[in-house]
């Protein structure tokens, strides 16, 4: 398959000063983003931050009030784009009464994939997701006979069946059990390995942290942070944190040291594990020396990398967390 322009454009997706206003509120406010081809990009933010609107604007499902959007090197309104894009919406569903193969064939035909080729790929994908082979074949099952997780996998297959150059997934892991979520994650990583670009939105920070090359944090329709994962983390302005474990009997000795507010500003005691934030000016090296001097027997001492979750807390504040952000998933 030849990929016109796909390797050459500088960006897989580029938004310049894009805004979209609904009757009652500003959903997207002058967002600018640039996503390199062949990378996985995470669009992070609490519910209602403007992620879905940003995605729908990028797919030309809605028109922006202002700003320009370029997809794979051409304007987002270019009709030739639809066959080069794959989209998994957050609100998912398929024709319930249709058989799996017919649904997938229909979705492939919408992307101008001939029936024979579509059938070959459908078999391949169903086998990959263990829905075909070994005596069973769910291709002939009706959609509403399948479990929710199975239906989501079918819909994911529908998204990538035409081998799109840019795949946009809106909350792809929500509502999936760990096994199915892992299958989708593996596939996304594999798509990147094959040079495809993937953009996905999520409110699960740790998923984004493990998978993305670059991220943008959106809140209230605006971009709060944007860049390579490393750079985003480097912008973390909060105090350095250290995680420690002590041998039995040493916890009491340690608590005296940790009570020093010139050294430690905050203690988070998890019983077996203690996590602390260092006071301004203090270093982890000073903390370690003080603990050793106090004859504390140390089992583990880790300087913590700031997590995306902390970056987000630092930049957006607890309000964003309460609005639906989660560090777990």
């Amino acid at each position: 398959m030849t990929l016109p322009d796909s390797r050459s454009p500088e960006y897989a997706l580029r938004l310049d000063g894009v805004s979209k206003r609904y009757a009652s509120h500003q959903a997207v406010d002058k967002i600018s983003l640039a996503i390199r081809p062949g990378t996985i990009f995470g669009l992070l933010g609490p519910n209602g931050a403007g992620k879905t609107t940003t995605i729908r604007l990028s797919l030309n499902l809605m028109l922006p009030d202002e700003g320009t959007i370029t997809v794979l090197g051409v304007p987002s309104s270019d009709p030739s784009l639809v066959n080069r894009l794959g989209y998994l919406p957050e609100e998912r569903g398929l024709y319930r009464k249709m058989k799996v193969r017919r649904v997938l064939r229909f979705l492939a035909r919408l992307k101008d994939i001939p029936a024979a080729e579509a059938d070959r790929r459908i078999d391949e994908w169903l086998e990959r997701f263990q829905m075909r082979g070994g005596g069973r074949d769910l291709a002939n099952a009706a959609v509403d006979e399948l479990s929710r997780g199975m239906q989501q996998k079918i819909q994911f297959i529908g998204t990538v069946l035409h081998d799109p150059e840019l795949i946009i997934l809106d909350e792809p892991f929500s509502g999936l059990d760990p096994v199915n979520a892992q299958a989708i994650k593996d596939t996304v990583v594999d798509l990147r390995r094959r040079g495809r670009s993937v953009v996905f939105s999520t409110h699960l920070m740790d998923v984004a942290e493990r998978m993305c090359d670059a991220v943008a944090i959106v809140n209230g329709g605006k971009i709060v942070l944007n860049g390579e994962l490393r750079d985003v983390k480097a912008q973390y302005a909060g105090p350095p944190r250290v995680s420690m474990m002590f041998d039995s009997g040493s916890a009491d000795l340690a608590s005296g040291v940790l009570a020093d507010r010139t050294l430690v500003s905050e203690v988070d005691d998890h019983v077996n594990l203690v996590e602390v934030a260092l006071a301004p000016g203090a270093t982890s090296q000073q903390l370690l020396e003080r603990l050793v001097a106090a004859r504390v027997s140390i089992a583990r001492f880790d300087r913590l990398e700031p997590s995306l979750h902390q970056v987000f807390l630092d930049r957006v504040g607890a309000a964003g967390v309460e609005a639906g952000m989660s560090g777990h998933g």
Partner: protein
Amino acid sequence: MGKLSAVIGREFGERVRSRWFLLTTLFGPILFAALLIIPPWIASRTEATIDPTRLLFIDATGGRLGDAVAGDFAGGIQSSATPPAVSQTTPDSLDAATSRARARLLDGAISGFVVLDPATLSTGAARLVLRDGVPGAFTDRLSAALDRQIRRQRFAALGLSAEAADDVARVRVRVNTIRLDAEGREASARVNLLFGFGVAILLYIAIVLYGQIVLRSVTEEKQSRVSEVVLASVPARVLLAGKILGIGGVALVQLGLWTAAIITLLANRAALFAKFGIAAASVPLPSIDADSLVLLGAYFVMGYALYAALFAIVGSIATSEQEAQQAQTPVIMLLVASMALLQPALADPNGAIGWWLSLIPFSSPIMMPLRLGLTDVPTTEIVASIGVLGLTGVLALLAAGRVYRTALLMYGKRPSVREIFRWIRAAD
């Protein structure tokens, strides 16, 4: 084009493959056959419950009127049957004879009795007494026999010979209404009335039926959230066009099958009636030319497209199936109003009501075919009607495409009428 055919193919293929299609396709002809056979069959059955051979005529006229009527009555369709019994009596003992007959009727010895009193010959009045309800055909036959025999006796009383009296009495009056069309061809006006009425009702049913299918299809797509995936691959107007064309294709196939089945049934109705033991009534088949067939097809296609667009708008703005059922009321009302005004238009096909309703696009697909069957509609009126209908249809489809694009992505909230008009006005 490939994407449009994909949408058409899905709508058409899934529906034709469904159990619903098989059932309704079979049900149409079965319903028609039932309507064709059951009423005359029931009529013939009811008639048989009053056994004419066990009928008693009480004749107090003093002449032989009872014998004559009984003979005539039996000599109708069932000429092989033995004529009913006749009891001659005098005016004085008529009451006694009547009460005896009453008792025998209650015993079940006779199936009913007819009283011909002394005045019957002059007034034509007679009494028929039965146990059960009386079938219309039975009294009609009795009245006809009575009518003929009274005339015959009175003509004879005026001095005509028996043959001459017979001859005069046998005259039966029938008015055969002939409708002469513009080319001078003759056609039965009654047949055309029935045909025009039938076509109007068929068009109404087809538009409601398939409009509803469009509505349900749109609602289902929005409810199941499939529309967002599909809209990422095809523009809203292509999705809408494919849906309307695909379901329209199903409609044409089904209507074609129904028409073929109905024509086959009508062509073989003599054999069919014979199987059920019903005397074949002569139902003349309407003769329609290719021109009017094309015109009927055009009205169906355009009427369906207009209403399908309206139903699609309703389906795309509704947030649930129940809401769609409620929201479609204004659209249904437009159709029902057209049907409600069918009667006055029927009475005066070229009157103001008929004229206006065949010009207004929401009723013209039903009204114009009816008028075409009844009168010669001037060509200018047909052209104007088709033009207005076609234009409205195109506008409705364009509006539906715009509403569709926005409404399908809105979940949870039903837009206001003002919002809908804003979407329609918004440029692409």
